[in-house]
């Protein structure tokens, strides 16, 4: 870990837990200093990331482990501090080619989750490490805005 720990949650891959994590993220992002739309963005990104893990990494199994870790990370040039979320699961390795999201010029259901994540966050990185899929998301406070 390279930042200051804000929250660490271990949960099972049960969709019934999504509302619990959303409630925690709403409060935490508000306390971090984000505006209301920014709080919704981060909450949406984490919710969609968890949904992807439950649907794709664990193929609908509801008893598999997921870890969510939130921490404050140093600011970049022209930003305030960053709110970093690290999500890890123990599912099979994900094909990076499938992490691009689909084009939006066709009206069809599905494939929107990744698009929402990329639109909502400043940094979206994926890697495979020691048998786990790791997704790293960061959203930065606007410059000069600290809690």
């Amino acid at each position, binding site marked *: 870990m390279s930042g200051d720990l804000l929250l660490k949650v271990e949960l099972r891959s*049960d*969709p*019934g*837990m*999504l*509302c*619990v994590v*959303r409630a925690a993220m709403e409060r935490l992002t508000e306390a971090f200093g984000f505006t*209301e*739309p920014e709080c*919704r963005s981060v909450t*949406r990104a984490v*919710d*969609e990331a968890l*949904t992807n893990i*439950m*649907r794709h990494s664990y193929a609908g199994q509801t008893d598999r482990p997921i870890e969510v870790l939130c921490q404050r990370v140093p600011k970049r040039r022209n930003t305030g501090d960053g709110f970093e979320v690290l999500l890890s699961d123990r599912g099979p390795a994900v094909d990076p080619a499938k992490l691009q999201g689909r084009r*939006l*010029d066709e*009206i*069809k*259901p*599905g494939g*929107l*989750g990744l*698009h*929402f994540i990329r*639109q*909502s966050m400043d940094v979206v990185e994926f890697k495979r490490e020691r048998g786990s899929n790791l997704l790293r998301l960061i959203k930065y406070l606007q410059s000069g805005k600290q809690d």
Partner: protein
Amino acid sequence: MRGEKALQISARRIETTTIFDITGDIDLANSPEIRKALLKEIKESKTPRVVMNLVKVRYIDSSGVASLVEGLKASRDAGTRFILFGLSPAAREVLQLSRLLKIFEVHDTEEQALA
């Protein structure tokens, strides 16, 4: 944890229109319920106009958007109307992000949706 924030779906019939009143967040845990109710009304009951009351829906995820898109496509195939009203900021944002806000028929109030 299941059921603590269970989605509630109820249906009202006004002449040739069915209005679904939805309460709760729409996410992976319950979007199949929405999809099932919508497709039954559009494909099986062949209702000429189906209206989704989303005033009490605070959050919609991508699976919920997908269910709405399926409803829209089914209504287009059937030659009927599919209308949304009462979008929360979060619901409006996901439709904007997916470039679907202009694809759906969206109104602010029930009165406008039924006009």
